């Protein structure tokens, strides 16, 4: 969605125009759902939390102030806060050691389909063991495909700080996959 179009819809939504907010919702709902789903690894829960994010966004629309950042950056912040709140209330956040224990080794006799499934599961588990900041960067940078500058804008940080976070996140992921016997090169070859 073009920035000018988004700003127009935001103004209309703030005046209470339902269609404008609906358009904003449709433009961003999947991205918010993906972000949450990657964070909580539970699609039904992610759906509920996505609904909660947009409900809160709707309620907070009168207070929304356009600070030159994409609207989705605001939604990501709400979603991030919602995820943190979820883990705080449920105390179910997986610890890094737990994640390592559950990483299953990739064996050469796995067929491609099984390899893909196993790789995906292992990778998701490894991501969920990262810090909050690292997870945000990994999801926004590699899953959502945003550039560093955009991620920095969304998270309210400097691009260099995001580059450092990106480096540490990839280093941590690579280390965990290596410790789990996960040969990334083999998996990538199998995916190609």
């Amino acid at each position: 969605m073009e920035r000018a179009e988004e700003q127009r819809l935001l103004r209309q939504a703030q005046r209470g125009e339902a269609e404008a907010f609906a358009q904003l919702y449709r433009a961003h709902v999947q991205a918010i759902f993906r972000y949450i789903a990657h964070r909580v690894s539970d699609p039904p829960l992610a759906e509920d939390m996505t609904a909660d994010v947009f409900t809160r966004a709707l309620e907070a629309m009168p207070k929304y102030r356009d600070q030159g950042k994409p609207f989705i950056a605001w939604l990501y912040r709400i979603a991030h806060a919602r995820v943190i709140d979820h883990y705080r209330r449920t105390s179910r956040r997986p610890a890094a050691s737990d994640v390592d224990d559950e990483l299953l080794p990739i064996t050469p006799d796995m067929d491609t389909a099984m390899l893909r499934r196993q790789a995906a599961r292992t990778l998701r588990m490894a991501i969920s063991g990262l810090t909050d900041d690292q997870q945000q960067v990994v999801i926004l940078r590699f899953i959502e495909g945003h550039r560093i500058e955009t991620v920095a804008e969304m998270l309210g940080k400097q691009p260099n700080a995001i580059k450092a976070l990106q480096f540490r996140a990839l280093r941590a992921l690579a280390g965990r996959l290596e410790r789990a016997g996960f040969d990334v090169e083999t998996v990538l070859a199998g995916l190609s």
Partner: protein
Amino acid sequence: MNETPHSPEFEAILDECLDALLRGTVTLDECLEHYPDYATDLKPLLQTGLLTSRLKSPEMPAARIDALEDRLRGQMPNLRSAQSRVVQGQFSSLAKLVAMIAVVLFFALGAGGSVVAASSNSLPGDPLYGLKRLWEQIVLLLVPLTGELDDLWLRLAQTRLYEAEQLAARGELTDAALVDLYESMVQSIALADEQTLPQVEAYLDEVEQTLITIAPSPETMTQYLQVLALSSGTTPQVHTEPSDQELQGVPPTLDQFGLTATLTPVLTDTPAATLTPTFTPSVTSTSTPRVPPTATRTPTQTLTVTPTFTPSITPSATWTPLPLPTLNTGGDTQPTRDPSSGGVQPTSTRILPTVDATIRYRETEQSVFMTQTAQPPPTATGAP
């Protein structure tokens, strides 16, 4: 995995390669060849980034998206109402704050605010008097939010009395000033409640004494009384209940101070108490809903008329329309100016409790005054 070097330069190279890889403009090998010094460290990180980007993302089912959209659309009307309430609430709070400030200024500085304090002692005809009255109107608009309307009107009534006194001292007392005095007096009586009743009574006594004092001559006193009757077209009169046959046909003329105020009993086919009070009413509240009307006339010419009546808002043919306010002990009425008569009458939009008024009209050597004991008025006609 070996510890990868951590430097801003390496992070920048990593990001540059990742950008190119994710956009598909270069291959992994091309990137590593471009940075041979960092190739060993870059490779696992670039592979991990590439693998992560290939991770299939979950999608929210379309049905759930539509259902959530419907839900959000359903919440929007409520949200709009809530926004409105928030705005109204904020406005209400702000208005109340402004009102309280205005009232505090009013009571602290007399009839004026900080800017118009200089006008607070001005009198009709003075250059600043318009500013003073404007400030009063502003405060009157705001003060209902603070619930101090009765106090304010009493203060205004006292101000009008002071002005009348000062104007009289200058020899400049005008009919308009007396009308203003009368109107503020009406409002004070109408808004009096149990707490302010004693103050209103004291005020009415003060009005009486002041008018007596400032009247330069009996003729002027008559004029004042006529003006206070708000040009109702009648000489101030008290029409008493005709139950007392002794009073029938005996219209005593009071000539104290040269005042020609007649007590004219009005006889009607149906007994109905009719009040046309004259001059300054002093007010006492009573909890007795009805007092049997009695009227006695003593040889000393002290006439006490105690009618029980419940006047209707619209005077019947047997009533003489009166501009005199009724005391609203329930604090639930607002007299309004009747443009046709120039008088002030209870508004029909507010429901008033029944009135039990006792009028005592006494003639003494010093003064003529009427005591009206009133409880809320409107409908019903009095019966002996």
